[in-house]
């Protein structure tokens, strides 16, 4: 069988030139699916999902651990996909000797395994980017981030430090990025490499010659900066390289028409409209191998979600609503906790709605959902909840409630990366460095 990747590349006067090939029958299987032809397994996709303000412990945490746990009131919305979800409770963030940044330490620690040393910054690449480094080669986009509340800064996907990867802020902007200019539907027969991309790639390759010369003349610190810069350039090259090849896909999908522009903000009714749409686009992006890593957020830490007419909204309610002495929790806040689970379900349902191979897209994904706090009223870092969904192509057992018993949140991160087949011994740092994944979940 021909290797299309090899045949599509060549050289021209020292610069890389890329040539398209006719769509040869020998590249297809009887159904016309490139993936089936190559025989390579379906790629495992990875997604992070962020929601703000934690949980109401009494209503969220199942009483028993294991597979037969009784679904609690706040987990009921996830019941339709219970068998594909893992619930983690009793996790902890240790700040060690770093500041305890309210609403941020939990985000940073869950996303990197490291207690953050600076507000609003991550002390390493976030887990999605760590995974993307391994799994994204060959996809058109290394990763994509989207904010259902319409704020580009509501992205918890980062290259480290302040290098947050901005989120797409509406279904239309997400659609345009994924399926607008430059996109070719891999399921269509008229797919061909974009000549503009070919040209751009050639230009980058010429620059590559110059950069070697430049690097030799630089000092150590400048070399390091240039290294970082050229890493980005290299990633752009790889992306272009990917764009010059028909993605190998198995899913049966049709790319819809562009969505209308719509209001994207913190109002719950809008989120209920926007989140499924953005989720659908995220699912299509992963199904068509535009990206293998997707980050979705429905709010910022300290979520500003509100129901019109509620003058306090979610975050303010966590502070102002008294704990009901009889119930032992904050009833209004508890409702908002449930809305969060409903929004999460709408994301998962879109992934699960796409048939792929012997299951659905969700079965070939691992979704890693995290939040900023446990009991939001006091910004607690003890008892933080997490969720995963999807079986990572059969490498992760699902349907379990895992009681973390005070384990660091990094154990879930390590487990997720093991399930993604990433080779690493430990994850996290300080008190959160762990070599102990939840092995009971790993296949």
């Amino acid at each position: 069988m021909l290797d299309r990747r090899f045949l599509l590349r060549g050289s021209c006067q020292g610069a890389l030139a890329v040539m398209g090939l006719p769509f040869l029958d020998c590249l297809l299987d009887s159904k016309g699916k490139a993936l089936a032809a190559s025989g390579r397994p379906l790629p495992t996709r990875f997604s992070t999902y962020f929601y703000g303000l934690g949980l109401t412990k009494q209503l969220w945490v199942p009483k028993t651990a294991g597979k037969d746990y009784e679904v609690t009131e706040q987990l009921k919305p996830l019941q339709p996909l219970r068998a594909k979800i893992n619930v983690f409770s009793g996790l902890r963030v240790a700040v060690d000797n770093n500041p305890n940044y309210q609403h941020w330490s939990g985000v940073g620690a869950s996303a990197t395994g490291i207690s953050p040393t600076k507000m609003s910054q991550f002390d390493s690449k976030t887990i999605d980017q760590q995974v993307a480094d391994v799994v994204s080669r060959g996809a058109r986009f290394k990763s994509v981030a989207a904010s259902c509340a319409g704020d580009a800064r509501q992205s918890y996907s980062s290259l480290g430090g302040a290098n947050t990867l901005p989120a797409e802020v509406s279904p239309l902007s997400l659609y345009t990025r994924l399926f607008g200019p430059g996109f070719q539907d891999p399921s269509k027969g008229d797919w061909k490499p974009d000549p503009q991309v070919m040209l751009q790639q050639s230009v980058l390759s010429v620059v590559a010659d110059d950069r070697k010369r430049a690097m030799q003349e630089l000092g150590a610190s400048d070399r390091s900066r240039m290294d970082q810069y050229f890493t980005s350039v290299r990633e752009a090259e790889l992306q272009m390289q990917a764009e010059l090849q028909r993605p190998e896909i198995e899913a049966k999908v049709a790319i819809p028409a562009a969505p209308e522009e719509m209001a994207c903000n913190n109002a719950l009714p809008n989120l209920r409209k926007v989140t499924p749409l953005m989720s659908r686009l995220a699912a299509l992006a992963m199904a068509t191998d535009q990206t293998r890593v997707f980050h979705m957020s429905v709010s910022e830490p300290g979520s500003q979600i509100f129901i019109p007419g509620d003058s306090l909204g979610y975050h303010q309610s966590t502070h102002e609503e008294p704990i009901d002495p009889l119930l032992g929790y904050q009833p209004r806040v508890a409702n908002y906790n449930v809305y969060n689970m409903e929004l999460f379900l709408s994301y998962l349902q879109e992934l699960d709605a796409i048939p792929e191979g012997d299951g659905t897209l969700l079965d070939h994904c691992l979704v890693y959902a995290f939040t900023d706090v446990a009991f939001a009223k006091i910004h607690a870092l003890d008892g933080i909840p997490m969720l995963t969904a999807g079986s990572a192509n059969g490498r992760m057992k699902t349907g379990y409630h895992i009681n973390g018993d005070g384990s660091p949140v990094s154990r879930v991160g390590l487990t997720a990366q093991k399930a993604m087949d990433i080779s690493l011994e430990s994850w996290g740092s300080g008190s959160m460095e762990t070599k102990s994944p939840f092995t009971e979940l790993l296949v």
Partner: protein
Amino acid sequence: MRLHKHLWFCALAGLLCGAQPVSAAPWVRGYVVATYEYAFRYGGRAGFTRGSEIEPGVDCPHGSTVHFANEDETRRALARQKWRSRQEIDWITKPPGLGQARAPVLTRFFIWNRAVSYRGYRRGIETYVNPFAAEDPGQPQVVSRIGDGFNLDGKIGTRDFVSPDGEKGIDNALYRAWGCDAPWRGNGNATLDLRANDKMQEGLYTMVIRISGNQDPMNDDNATVEIGYSPDKIVKDARGNVAPDYSYRILEPAEYTRLKARIRNGVVQTEQVAQMHAPRIAWFYDQTGDADFHQGRIRLKIADDGSAAGLLGGYRDWRDLYVENAFAQDGGQQGIREHEDHVALYYALKRNADGMYDPRTRRYQGISTAYRITAMPAYVVDPDKPMDIPLLAGEVDRKAAFEAIRAATIKAVTTRVPQDVPPGTTEAAVPTLERVIVDLPSKDYFLKTLDRPRYPEEKAANDTSNRRAANDGKSLALAGKP
């Protein structure tokens, strides 16, 4: 390692105990403080609920404070400033076009924050640094006669409380002044009690107690109590409870006091000392530091399971208490979110001050207090070599800003000359409001009308303010990265 070392020590002590009469054996018991709260006694019925409200009770017949809890309360607070126009009050209370803002709750919150931060007798005087310049909005005070604490002055006065076990003359004027404030009132679930304890247990600071003597740990006429700061973070078990029997160092240079004590049937009563130092209640790093009790003393009851519970008490400078609470974040934020009004609190603290008489000013600078603690058994040991209380490197600038605003406030209330807000704080929502308000159609009106601190070093202030605003989490997306 340290645990092993002290287990060995205890085993040796046990052998020694076995060789000598129990009544003459030197003994040491250590504790790590697990909860630390102002000793405010909730007067409502346990288990009563009314739509999740905290019940009015014998302590506070009108219930907890409701400052800034809704538009009417905020309007009432703003209407006291005669220099505000009707339109200004109306627009602040209900900002026009709020529904068009991405984050309307947050936008209104910071407009209110800035507005309530300027309630002086004229425009331009920041209220929380200069509370004396604002009209007293009135503070609901505790009216119950039952209260926890000590008879600090040795007298039985008409305004003194009676302890739950019948002791008369209890001095706890802080409870009277502050006990109805919403975040501190509750039946074990007051917001800031929960929060402060949670942060302490998460490692913000650690307080330890070491009791030693030569007779019997339950009965000793010549015992010693040490209280102080430990650089070792509290260890919790898998269920999130403070774990017993871990080792903690106790530091002596600061926030430390050694007191003589007498123990009868497991009740430890210390002497009353002119000054008793111990860590403060805090839920942010900048609040941490020394709680300087005058005429301080401690009472602890040792339980059969080895834990301890009791009270610390003494007179504290009421200005310190004001500052420690008002500037946990900033006065407006603390007020609107927690329904406390620090102007009301300022007048209540001043009105109820009952100790530390200063003949020069002819005023009481202190207010009688009691703090409630519970503690778990621990090994409290000296450090291998003397050490200072460590600084948290990432919070040094924030701590400096806190100390600066503390100094400005104490100068203001002492001299009654209005002081500026030092840079580096988030007082009056600077510059958070400017960032949050961008999509409000009426933003120009508020930015033009509302006062705000102006700094020559605006950039430096902004940098720090961003961190603090974001730290609060209300404005991560709007006040800074990401």
